[in-house]
């Protein structure tokens, strides 16, 4: 009886919240929609219908996929593939390393733990862009210029991902690990069988950090991998904008393609964000 009124009340709040959520959602998506529409227009139509505003401002009267086929078959297609490969490797390897380190820092007792954690915090505070110049000199000396390895390595030492996972692991009741140890489970078993299954959400969050870092990195690939066969998508897009007589249609097509892959990932992982979260089953 009481829970029914509560449910009703929460549904009423939800309907009221709708009036806030819908305008915010439309506002935040509008720039992307405009970029998408522009990418489907012939180049000369993009700025034609802005003022005065008419139906043609929002709905393209002539739709063409030429912009997309042109950029995909050109050098940009290669850059997009490079970005996919480099980012995929960075996320998978980076997550494995970061989650193991976070687990050790959150759950294991050993001398020097707080020292290592302080070191880690200082490391993630150091802006990567700031150290990119000295680091790129080192990488060139090591022969890593214009290689996938040179592009992937900097994404792996990610203190932020470790920090995030550690914060979550610390919140898992330590009684779980203690019980498992009593039952004879080793440290890797505790990590693999207890902590990882509980941390789907935070792992996706840390994966997002690694993904965002690598997918949108711009300064580093510019410094270390300018060669056309290893060039990444953001660098290729910036090249578009710097051309004289910019082809806005093709630029927007490249922009939409570069945004599309992370967009699809967000749509896919959306379910994991909204799915029921880890329930430790502990009353603590």
């Amino acid at each position, binding site marked *: 009886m009481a829970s029914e009124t509560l449910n009703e009340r929460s549904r009423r709040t939800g309907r009221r919240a709708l009036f806030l959520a819908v305008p915010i959602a439309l506002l*935040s998506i509008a720039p992307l929609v405009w970029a998408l529409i522009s990418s489907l227009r012939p180049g000369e139509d993009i700025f034609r219908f*802005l003022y005065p505003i008419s139906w043609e401002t929002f709905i393209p009267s002539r739709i063409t996929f030429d912009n997309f086929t042109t950029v995909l078959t050109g050098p940009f297609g290669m850059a997009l593939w490079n970005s996919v490969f480099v980012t995929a490797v960075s996320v998978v390897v980076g997550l494995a390393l970061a989650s193991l380190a976070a687990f050790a820092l959150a759950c294991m007792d050993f001398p020097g733990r707080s020292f290592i954690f302080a070191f*880690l915090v200082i490391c993630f505070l150091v802006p990567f862009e700031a150290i990119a110049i000295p680091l790129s000199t080192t990488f060139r000396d090591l022969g890593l210029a214009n290689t996938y390895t040179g592009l992937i390595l900097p994404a792996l030492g990610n203190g932020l991902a470790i920090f995030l996972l550690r914060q979550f692991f610390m919140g898992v009741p330590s009684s779980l690990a203690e019980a498992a140890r009593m039952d004879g489970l080793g440290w890797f078993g505790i990590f693999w069988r207890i902590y990882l299954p509980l941390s789907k959400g935070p792992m996706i969050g840390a994966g997002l950090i690694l993904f965002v870092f690598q997918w949108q990195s711009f300064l580093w690939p510019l410094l270390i991998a300018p060669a056309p066969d290893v060039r990444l998508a953001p660098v290729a897009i910036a090249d578009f904008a710097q051309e004289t007589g910019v082809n806005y249609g093709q630029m927007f097509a490249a922009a939409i393609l570069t945004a599309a892959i992370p967009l699809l990932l*967000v749509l896919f992982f*959306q379910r994991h964000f909204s799915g029921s979260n880890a329930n430790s089953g502990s009353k603590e």
Partner: protein
Amino acid sequence: MTTIQAETVSGSPPPTRRKPRFGAQRANTLMWAGIFLLPSVILLILLRFAPMVAAFSDALAFGSTRGIWSNFSFIFSDPAFWNSLWITLIFSIIINPLQIALALGLAVLLTKHIPMVGLWRTLILLPVAVPQVVSAIIWLVLFRPDGPLNGITRALGLPSIPWLTEPGWALWSIIVVCSWVGVGYWMTFLVAGIREIPNSLYEASSIDGAGAWRQFWHITVPGLRRPLLFVLVADTVSNFLIFAPVRILTRGGPEGSTDLIMYNITERAYTLGDTGAASAATLVLIVVVIAVVAVQFRLMPGKD
């Protein structure tokens, strides 16, 4: 009763979380901790720490006639550097509370029982996926004097707005571009945090007659302490490092009104070729960032 308990506790050895272990077990723990941590620690040393040391040695002017600290005295006598610090300070004071308040508000909103909540959350999340270079290019076109935003202001009968060309507007335009991506990104961590808060707490307080506002301050905010600390630290740090939007939209102008510190440093290193001054400015930035974060750690109630 309480006194007796307190005395018993203080009389006995401090309670330990875990039972004392045998030496072999401790060695086993140490070994596994080493295996788990070593790859990350080595990478962090090589990729973050070593270049920082290199930046430090670049900043110190060994063998210069004007003394070892001449790069520092140079930047601190440079009005452009002071301007850049000032702009960065104003930018941080506006953008961090703004983004965190919006992210927290949206996170609370989107964990309510809204019809089709998944759709709205997805739409708000989508800009997160847009790379900085791409978003800067989209907004560069949106902000054009003849662009869509001024099309809207003119349709509303308002004058055209000099989004990127007037010192009073340009920094706000940068703030808008950064927040378009930032708010949704930080929101994801807070949404995850709100889901960790047991529903029973809200139900119980509802039965006790607590309103939404009281629930927000007494259940949601305390329950979000860890993710909020994370978002506070990480958002502040990332906003100190804004570079691509400045580079693509304003190049620090007009009149230095958007000359954020990262752009200032990069200009010194790449355009002016003054590695020494750039490294000195980098070290100043690192010290400021670490100081701000240390203060935030202190201000946050409770342990870590």
